């Protein structure tokens, strides 16, 4: 398998099909990329992939090493086939939260065993809608996936009830100097990409590694039944960092107070979100450190969302946890948009925190 890094790595990760519960293709790819840069790895019973880089050098305490966990989730939002109609259409439910407004008319990629099946999400055409229907969102229960089959029989040859799928969406760099990245599943393959590159840089460049570092690529974040809980229990870290993407609205027509964070201003540190109250001291320390080193970072400015941090924080007898997120527009849609510089800033900040033994 070719080795990828940076944007090319993110592209490969973005294009993989890995809705919650079906993360194995993502895990296999990650394994192919970290081969040779970790000291050991294992897949736990919740299908998390956990890779370890052992500490070394003067700052490393051999007898009771400090354990740091860095995690990102491999899964993405998607759909699951719930029924097949006589006419060969697929009824579906979402896996994780997807607003019905970004589903209508979109292309999907369904996974039947190892075969891919393409489809289009359709609903009542515009010329048949009443005026009131045109002003309202179409409920997901009124949508269906059209895979081109003309009968139930033809559809069943290619798909089964329970099969999962994801948005079918190209990876595109756009905007000024191609700094913006558009794709599916950047939530949270961006975190996975940063972790893979971090592991390589630590292994290659860091002479003193002050901690045993556990890189956890986790499962099922999007459905809230987090694999990270199992990963954290297994690792039993002294401190954890969750690398995520956070939904932002730094877009036209949205007031400053609701924008959450600003793209291009670095990773967003959460003091609080809908599922976690973070360790204030740790947040302050990281933000101060970033400021001193001239690495861009910002505070998440809106109480919203939640992530694996809540499960990691509550594992065993409790773990100090930090969430550092790339601001992402239009998450949980086929077109997540992130900023290249934020990805770089997050990687740089974590690397410096480890290199200078600040965790």
């Amino acid at each position, binding site marked *: 398998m070719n080795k990828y890094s940076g944007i090319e790595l993110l592209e490969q990760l973005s294009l993989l099909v890995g809705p919650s519960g079906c993360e194995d293709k993502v895990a296999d790819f990650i394994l192919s990329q970290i081969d040779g840069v970790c000291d050991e790895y294992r897949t736990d019973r919740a299908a998390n992939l956990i890779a370890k880089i052992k500490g070394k050098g003067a700052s490393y305490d051999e007898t009771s090493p400090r354990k740091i966990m860095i995690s990102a989730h491999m899964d993405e939002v998607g759909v699951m086939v719930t029924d097949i109609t006589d006419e060969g259409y697929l009824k579906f439910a979402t896996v994780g939260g997807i607003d019905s407004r970004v589903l209508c008319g979109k292309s999907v990629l369904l996974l039947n065993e190892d075969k891919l099946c393409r489809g289009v999400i359709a609903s009542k*055409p515009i010329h048949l809608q009443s005026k009131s229907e045109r002003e309202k969102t179409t409920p997901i229960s009124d949508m269906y996936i059209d895979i081109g089959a003309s009968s139930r029989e033809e559809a069943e040859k290619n798909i089964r009830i329970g099969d999962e799928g994801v948005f079918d969406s190209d990876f595109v760099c756009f905007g*000024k100097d191609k700094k913006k990245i558009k794709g599916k599943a950047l939530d949270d393959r961006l975190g996975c990409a940063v972790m893979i590159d971090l592991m390589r840089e630590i292994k290659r460049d860091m002479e003193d590694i002050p901690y045993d570092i556990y890189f956890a690529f986790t499962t099922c974040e999007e459905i809230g039944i987090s694999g990270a809980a199992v990963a954290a229990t297994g690792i039993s870290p002294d401190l954890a960092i969750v690398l995520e993407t956070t939904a932002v609205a730094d877009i036209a027509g949205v007031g400053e107070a609701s924008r959450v964070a600003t793209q291009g201003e670095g990773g967003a540190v959460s003091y609080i979100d809908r599922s976690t109250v973070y360790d204030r001291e740790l947040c302050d320390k990281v933000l101060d450190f970033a400021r001193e080193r001239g690495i861009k970072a910002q505070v998440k400015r809106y109480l919203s969302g939640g992530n694996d941090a809540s499960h990691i924080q509550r594992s065993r007898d409790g773990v100090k946890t930090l969430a550092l997120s790339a601001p992402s527009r239009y998450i949980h849609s086929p077109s997540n948009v992130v900023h290249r510089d934020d990805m770089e800033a997050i990687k740089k900040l974590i690397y410096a925190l480890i290199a200078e033994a600040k965790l």
Partner: protein
Amino acid sequence: MELKELLLSLPALMSVSGYERYSTEKLNTLIGDVFDEAYTDAIGNHVFIKRCGKEKAPKILVDCHFDEIGMIVSGISEDGFLSVAGVGGVDTRLLGASEVVIYGKEEISGVFAATPPHLIGDGEGDKLKSLKELVIDTGYTGKELEDICNIGTPVGYKPRYTELLGGRIAGKGFDDKACGACAVYGIQTADKNSLAGDVYFVFSTREEIGGVGAQTATYGIDPDYALVMDVTYAYTPEMNRGKHIYLGSGAAVCMSAVTDRRLTKKVISLCEQKGIKYSIEAEPNNTGTNANKMSKVGDGVPTVLASLPLKNMHTANEMLALEDCETLSLLVREFICSKEIAEVFAR
């Protein structure tokens, strides 16, 4: 060019109503070889002629509209978001997080902004924003955009084609450039010596905003008779009309007061003779196509309408069946070669 290749390349051209000249050069490169002559008229219709080589030959017009629905830039914000106005019927339900191309001085990518769930207030969960309220994210600032686009720049769905089961293809612009592909392929496969007349293929403009293009093109050409090809609604579960027009049902030949009944019956018997799969579509008063205007141009033009069944019309994922396109190509070829029809309708 093979039919499938035409089906994947012609619909991908940018042709938002009123901006059809944007793609003239590309269009000529793609299909110019099939014809003896080509010109673009005052309104922007692209006319291609294949001669039969005989003097005083009847003029057979085959019309498909080149234009497609889309948008134009109506505002540019300081932070680089575009507002747009619709050109033709745009279904706003489909726009959240969808991809577009902005056809300015350079072609740039854009994404329709979607409201993140945390900003959807209580009770607003099922409200739909109107096109006026939606914005496109370009990744540039307003200042940077000044050199790229301006008010009036056309915006279209991103061309992206997906092949599905059973020879179905989904993508943008099949309305009506897929019919154009069928027509070009049909004309390409017709032997020059067997043509019943000179064939005028009109890739007409502005159908989606009223049909001005086909009207003036028809006047300019003054054909003996005409075949109009457009898309029609293939059966989907919500439709309460008959199920006889569906993907795979072949050419939908229209019975209407607008079109010429004698010519239509000739075409139906042509289908019967040549084994061309067809169904009959009943549209008594208004076909919603260029046939409405064309049949009453000049001293009147006998017109027949044959349509391609299409799902998801006016979306970025319109869906057709390759087999229907093959059928329509065959119909075009037999139509322009039919001496029987020429005998009756040539002036």
